């Protein structure tokens, strides 16, 4: 079986004022269609860089990304990105923001009326059809992010990339949006890669959680399959032993194995040493993932259904 999306041996080096900075090294990840994967890790570990490489906004120094058998070289609407701070055009109304994307992607394939229906449909999907004529400055942060999601969904991407989409929102709004996202993903079966800082969010939404080691030269430390049955209910899960256990595992990875670098040289070196075995292990994990698809209850097809 060919993987839907595959990152193989991805590494990237940035040139900062002449000196080279290696941000990522040997990142390997395979996604199936309809899978929801979270990237979690400490700030500066290169999560966003991974996402930007998949989006095509950055070019990997080595390795590459293959989506449906084609190498990713440039950004494109088949890999729509939801940015952390909504990134709506402040001079365009809610409707026009989505229309900008829809007119670009479906210029030829849909008539004017069809495009209008499609824009309205997508805004309705995120419950924003009541504010189509408002400017972004006239709606709340959560609403803006809903529009940002609608704009991406409207492009019908093969992969939906989300860069800490709910990071800037208050807890209540965040919970609402998480529920909306779960519902939409269950309905449409989108393939999603989401970056998050929030352990609960990762466990609640994902089929797999990709935990990243600290940079520089960050890589995937471990991948945790989340086998919780869908649809998931946040209230019921709060006391579910499996949920608690998964949550515990992520926390352990983040704080026990890869505690945030204290900044001491010794600490950094120790960490660098700790990374490589984890890195080799990850290859094994990724392989076994591909090989044993069925034993995971939360795996692709079943998850979306």
């Amino acid at each position, binding site marked *: 079986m060919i993987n839907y999306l595959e990152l193989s041996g991805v590494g990237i080096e940035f040139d900062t004022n002449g000196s080279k900075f290696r941000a990522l090294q040997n990142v390997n990840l395979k996604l199936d269609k309809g899978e929801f994967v979270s990237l979690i890790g400490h700030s500066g570990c290169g999560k966003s860089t991974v996402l930007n490489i998949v989006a095509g906004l950055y070019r990997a120094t080595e390795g590459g990304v293959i989506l449906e058998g084609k190498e990713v070289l*440039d950004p494109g609407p088949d890999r729509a990105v939801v940015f952390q701070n909504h*990134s709506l*055009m402040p*001079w365009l109304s809610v409707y026009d923001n989505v229309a900008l994307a829809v007119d670009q992607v479906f210029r030829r394939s849909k008539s004017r009326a069809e495009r209008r229906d499609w824009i309205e449909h997508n805004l309705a999907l995120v419950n924003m059809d009541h504010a189509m004529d408002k400017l972004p400055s006239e709606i709340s942060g959560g609403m803006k992010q809903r529009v940002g999601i609608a704009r991406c969904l409207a*492009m019908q991407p093969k992969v939906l990339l989300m860069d800490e989409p709910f990071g800037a929102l208050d807890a209540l709004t965040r919970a609402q949006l998480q529920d909306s996202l779960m519902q939409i993903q269950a309905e449409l079966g989108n393939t999603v890669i989401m970056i998050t800082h929030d352990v609960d969010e990762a466990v609640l939404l994902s089929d797999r959680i990709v935990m990243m080691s600290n940079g520089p030269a960050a890589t995937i430390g471990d991948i945790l399959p989340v086998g919780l049955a869908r649809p998931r209910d946040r209230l019921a899960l709060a006391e579910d032993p499996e949920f608690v256990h998964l949550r515990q595992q992520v926390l352990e990875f983040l704080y026990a194995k890869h505690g945030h670098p204290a900044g001491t040289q010794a600490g950094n070196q120790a960490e660098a040493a700790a990374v490589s075995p984890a890195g080799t292990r990850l290859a094994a994990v990724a392989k076994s993932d591909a090989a044993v698809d069925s034993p995971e209850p939360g795996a692709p097809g079943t998850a979306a259904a």
Partner: protein
Amino acid sequence: MSDTLSNAAAAIPDHRLERILAGFNPGKLASALILPTLGILVFLLAWHLSASRIETSLGQFPGPVQVWEQVQNLAAEHRRERDKEAAFNERQQQRNARKLAANPEAEVKWRSYTGKPTFFDQIVTSLLTVGAGFLIANLIAIPLGVLCGLSASMYKAVNPVIQVFKPVSPLAWLPLVTMVVSATYSVEDPMFDKAFLNSAITVALCCLWPTLINTTVGVTGIDRDLVNVSRVMALSPLTHIHKIVLPAATPMIFTGLRLSLATGWMVLIAAEMLAQNPGLGKFVWDEFQNGSSNSLGRIMVAVLAIGLIGFMLDKLMLALQKRVSWDKQAVLR
């Protein structure tokens, strides 16, 4: 007086006056109306007092009163000139009508009136010239600024040229412009007057820079995320500029446009004076050469007119900026 006022207030049953008085904020009114009026009055007084002490070879320096007389004189001259023009046209029409009545095949000539341009005609000429120069400048400056903002290499290439020519005074350009225009613009029945082109081009050369620099800065400063959104949507370069770059840079472009227009208006007067191009500058220069006892007063009228028009042009741009600005919360002044 105050009695009648309070009686009147008491007579109004719906307390309208009280409501007006309640909304009456002495501090606000003072800053909005009284203080500027006071400033102008103090200025007029100082002008009046100092003018009476300055004795020039053309007589006493004009005070506010003499200048006001000249305003009326100039208005009267304008009306007389218009009457003459109307009379001329009427005579011409009658003559041609007679000719045609005698012989329908006759060739009739229409000559336009060639009287001396009045002060108000000069204002119109100046406004047209500055408008043309401003237009030429921005047709170059905005596209070039967008390019410089989008491409760092383009900016590096253009920047030295901007830095060198930005501080150049219009008076240095003028002889060059005059020579170049007379050498290259030599067509039969020209659409534009050479003098008009000289001053318009000089104005353009000077008011190019503020728009160019501000457009570049505005385009460079677009939010990275918005640019990334555009890349993800794979917008074509033209759509990107039209839908993302220009709206995002509009506030800065307008800052540039306002600076440009102010520079252009200042430059224009100098150019007209030096190059004998028609317009307010020439009016000032002619009056200076004329040297009658009224000249200084008439020049002073021109000075005030130049100031007021400059002020109005800026207000016009501000109104336009407010109209096109998407950020309605931004405080524009």
